[in-house]
């Protein structure tokens, strides 16, 4: 099944003005501490790192651990002086990778 991510940000932020970016990705964030109904330990499967880059320049990155809830959510504030491309990436265990791109047009 294709991974789903939801990103919320203004499409046309004002130049130099702060705006909030909220991002979440569908992922169970299995801690490795839980057991299945049959008693077997459920193996650890986590998203480990989230990054947001504006035209290649790092805006916000988060290393996340088992204590982050399922469907990991982060929000942060950024500003842009010119239009550009925001690239979001999530990477984790078992080769998990998800990428999203959003274009922002500064007004």
């Amino acid at each position, binding site marked *: 099944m294709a991974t789903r991510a939801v990103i919320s940000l203004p499409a046309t932020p004002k130049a130099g003005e702060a705006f909030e970016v909220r991002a979440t990705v569908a992922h169970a964030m299995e*801690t490795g501490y839980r057991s299945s109904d049959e008693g077997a330990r459920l193996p650890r499967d986590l998203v480990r790192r989230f990054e947001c880059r504006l035209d290649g*320049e*790092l805006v*916000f990155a988060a290393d996340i651990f088992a*204590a982050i*809830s399922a469907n990991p*959510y982060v929000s942060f504030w*950024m500003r842009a002086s010119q239009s550009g491309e925001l690239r979001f990436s999530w990477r984790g265990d078992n080769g998990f990778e998800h990428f999203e791109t959003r274009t922002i047009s500064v007004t």
Partner: protein
Amino acid sequence: MKRREFIVSAAVFAALPEAQAEEAAMRDAIRTWAGRDPEAGTLKIDIAELVENGNAVPVRVTASEPVVGLALFTPLNPEPGVIQVSLGAAAAKPEFSTRMRLARSQRIVAVARAADGRCWQTGVDVIVTLAACVEP
């Protein structure tokens, strides 16, 4: 010694070594991330004081001055690390929000790191009535 005092002190002594070990593990994790022991300082941690469901607790950490890094730690979850954030030049505010798991009632700690290497921390007590399913 009255019976009640005895029960209380016995409980405190029984819990002490374990709690100290976990506090030490958290201090080590903080030192690894920050590169030193942070001073006590001001950081705003927005989190409900009384949490009904520890599986997804909204939390926001805000610093009062520009920082390059923010992180959250817990002494009594199975691991001390929660999230470690890096902020680039385009980050507009020294803050972030997320949703975290809490295995039990505890004092969670937020740490900030400034560009000049200073770091400081603050803690907040959270009471959890239904813990996250993180224990075996």
